[in-house]
């Protein structure tokens, strides 16, 4: 007998054996859903362990462990979907879910299910359980290092909170399109937040990061001290910040996490469900120019160890590097199987779901803009008066009108091509289809974020990545409190 694959072994141990399930029971479940004349059915089994540990006031006194498991069964016919889930893994529960899911279809079918294959796509990360990667004492020591580093850096630091979180997820996907896949998805994250106080003024600074690996990677890369330094730097900077300007002006966006611009301004509008329904402002823009020829944007789920990476999506489709905008022209949309089938195209491996209790839909993975030719210094020097925004809290978009926002947490006023002084956080608002036309310079310093992004859509949260080089945007509305003085 050949060696059992690591992911198959984990699926057997965590998903099949405890519920007395076998690959045959899954096939029976699918056959049950499929016996009504639907186009497609799938079953998704998931086991996830989640742990979090917090240091506050120098004391590690808050820790939690969460175990989540269950099965979701889905049947689709045309645009109709039937879906049911159960938190109990067992043959009867799966059959009952299949019965509920197939209720959208009527009429019987005799045809046999296609033969399933389980050739796994190449891994994008290791499979160790991060929860077991360090023992409790080592985790506490890691958090202490964050706390002590932050306090040592500046007397203004009044409060330090840091959270170490990790997840170990085992999934199994089987479908009537011949998919039988297992996967293991580790994820860790370290977050630091500090409050600094000077002369009665209090400001907050934060930093975080992580990816699909064990805690030991955080230690190897010096993350605890580095994140603490970064959080303290931002908090101290905010103590000096002046009112942000109000009005439309030139904005220079820093590299890395400010790529949240791309995620909100165009990414969501290119997701296949909104394209199929015609509710996205980008629906009819395929092949059209929306940006200068210097702009190329991709969604790439295959990058090793990234927070937004997956070797396969939640429908068992291998992820890929999808070009969304090439040399300024829209070239691709993001699809799951349902929307791809209805749009007569192929899934791009972007069918993702928060858990077994949610239905998959087209979602981003790691979305970023490729590097251009300008140095960041050259870009800053080109601006007479504007805003330089390097840190953000996150954003939101209305895909129908195309209006999007993202909120700066670290920003500076630019005067005569030089950074003048820090300004308070402010929300930036723009229009998705037109904002990239105003990108007049693309930096040569592409960077991906540190691994902090979580994207929400229709109430479902999934981890994602973003990135970009430094960008000059000629006109963006900045929501500060001080009127533009010319």
């Amino acid at each position, binding site marked *: 007998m050949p060696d059992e694959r690591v992911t198959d072994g984990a699926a057997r141990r965590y998903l099949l054996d405890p519920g007395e399930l076998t690959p045959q029971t899954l096939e029976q479940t699918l056959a049950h859903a499929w016996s009504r004349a639907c186009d497609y059915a799938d079953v998704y089994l998931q086991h996830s362990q989640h742990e979090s540990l917090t240091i506050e006031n120098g004391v590690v006194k808050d820790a939690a462990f969460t175990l*989540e498991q269950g099965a979701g069964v889905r049947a689709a016919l045309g645009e109709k979907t039937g879906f049911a889930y159960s938190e109990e893994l067992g043959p009867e529960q799966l059959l009952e879910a299949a019965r509920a899911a197939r209720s959208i279809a009527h009429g019987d079918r005799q045809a046999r299910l296609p033969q399933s294959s389980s050739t796994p796509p190449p891994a994008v990360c290791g499979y160790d359980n991060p929860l077991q990667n360090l023992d409790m004492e080592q985790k506490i020591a890691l958090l202490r290092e964050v706390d002590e580093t932050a306090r040592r850096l500046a007397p203004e630091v009044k409060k330090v*909170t840091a959270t170490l979180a990790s997840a170990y997820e085992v999934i199994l996907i089987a479908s009537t399109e011949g998919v039988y896949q297992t996967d293991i998805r580790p994820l860790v994250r370290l977050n630091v937040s500090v409050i600094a106080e000077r002369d009665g003024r209090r400001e*907050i600074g934060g930093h975080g990061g992580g990816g699909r690996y064990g805690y030991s990677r955080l230690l190897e890369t010096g993350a605890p001290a580095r994140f603490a330094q970064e959080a303290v730097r931002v908090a101290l900077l905010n103590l000096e910040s002046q009112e942000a300007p109000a009005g439309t002006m030139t904005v220079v966006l820093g590299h890395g996490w400010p790529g949240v611009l791309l995620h909100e301004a165009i990414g969501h509008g290119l997701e296949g469900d909104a394209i199929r329904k015609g509710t996205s402002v980008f629906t009819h823009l395929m092949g059209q120019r929306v940006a200068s020829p210097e702009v190329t944007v991709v969604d790439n789920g295959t990058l090793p160890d990234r927070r937004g990476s997956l070797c396969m999506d939640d429908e068992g489709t291998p992820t890929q590097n999808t070009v969304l905008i090439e040399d300024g022209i829209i070239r691709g949309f993001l699809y799951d199987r349902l929307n791809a089938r209805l749009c007569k195209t192929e899934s791009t491996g972007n069918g993702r779901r928060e858990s077994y209790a949610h239905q998959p839909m087209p979602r981003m993975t790691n979305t970023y803009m490729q590097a251009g030719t300008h140095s960041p210094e050259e870009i800053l020097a080109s601006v007479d008066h504007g805003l330089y925004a390097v840190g953000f809290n996150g954003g939101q978009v209305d895909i129908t009108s195309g209006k999007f926002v993202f909120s700066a947490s670290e920003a500076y006023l630019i005067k005569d091509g030089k950074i003048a002084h820090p300004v308070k956080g402010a929300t930036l608002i723009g229009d998705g289809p037109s904002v990239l036309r105003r990108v007049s310079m693309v930096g040569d310093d592409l960077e991906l974020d540190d691994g902090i992004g979580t994207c929400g859509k229709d109430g479902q949260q999934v981890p994602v990545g973003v990135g970009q080089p430094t960008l000059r945007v000629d006109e963006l509305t900045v929501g500060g409190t001080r009127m533009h003085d010319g």
Partner: protein
Amino acid sequence: MTAESASAQNLRTCVQQALDQARGQGATAAAVSLDRGEGLTVSVRLGELETIEREQDQGLSITAYFGQRRGHASSTDLREDSVERTVEAACQIARSTEEDPCHGLPDEDRLAFEYPELDLHHPWDLDSDEAVRLALECEDAARADARIANSEGAEVRRYDGIRVLGNSLGFMGAYRRSSHDLSCCVVAADEAGAQERDYWHSTHCDWRKMQDPGTVGRIAAERTVRRLGARPLASCVVPVLFEAPVARSLLGHFVGAASGRALYHEASFLLGRRDEQVWAEEITLTEHPHEAGGAASAPFDAEGVATRERTVVDNGILRGWFLSSYSARRLGLASTGNAGGVRNLVLESREPALSWDELLQRLGRGLVVTELMGQGVNQVTGDYSRGAAGFWVENGAVAHPVHEITIAGSLPDMYRGIVAVGAEQDRRGSLQTGALLVDRMQIAGV
């Protein structure tokens, strides 16, 4: 109270067993909560069934104390051996974390050993065929308007849940709560091809008290169509009228800053402001957790502490916080019964509440906000900057719809700058208020 079903008894037994196991493993105290629920969601789009979803949720959560050390674990698997492992995990964490003198169960005299029946349980015997019919009626009403060009669909959801909570001080409480929802989201288009989207929803624990499907659809269509032709504004400083559904978010920021966690983290612009005027002096905020059938009513909080009616802001003066047992001890105060959140916080003015037309008159020249976007609220400083859409008002009448602008200011100034409150309250959630008129904010636009 009516006799509980066998399943409710089973859940109590399960909670008690987990408590006993924790004690058996050496925990000095423990608390266990168990939630279980069942629901059906049906959505339609463009006159056709789109999804039928059946929900079956369950979860057990345990907090174990070893003296002043605490561990927390939860699981969606309620099989006996899995519950035992969850208890073990909580105990294991509690043994290995550090002491905090503020950890512990609530003070015994605050526990709701007796609690009122709040009329929150109205199961809806709704099958998927009938749900489809209601959703279609709702969407049809919205699409009756010729300017509605597309639809995200209409959705009907029924849900029926039970919560059981127990702790090692002998507290054991349970209540059922149903939650039903009807929503509709549509897209309008104008001749130029510009598209706008908006939605409306109605929710109640008693399905008989929801807005009817036709009304929900019509409101969704009205809210969407009125946005057509929106344009940005020039930057300016003007009064801003927050429509009731978005005015609730201003209460939300207040609750965030007045919550125990923000206070002991010193991450609140309200720090040290108790007994000071933080809202306009006409404004009073009261909490009504025992309102029969209320949107967020609960007989006890997430720790079993009795909830009670109280005044949080009295004529603009901040009189109370939102505290759990833990945050209360951190601050040297007593729990306010707010573990797990705020329950029916109602904003009222001692000035006469105004009708919508009166509010527009009072606004005169300025901005009505009907939608807010983004996270630009800083709880530490109170700095406020968010994306907005709404209407420009001249001479007390709507001039045109507005989008792609931001509004900015500071929450302390905004709370003190409220000059009028609308009569029509949005009571669909835990935060309840009429429209709020704020005297001046910075608008950023073209």
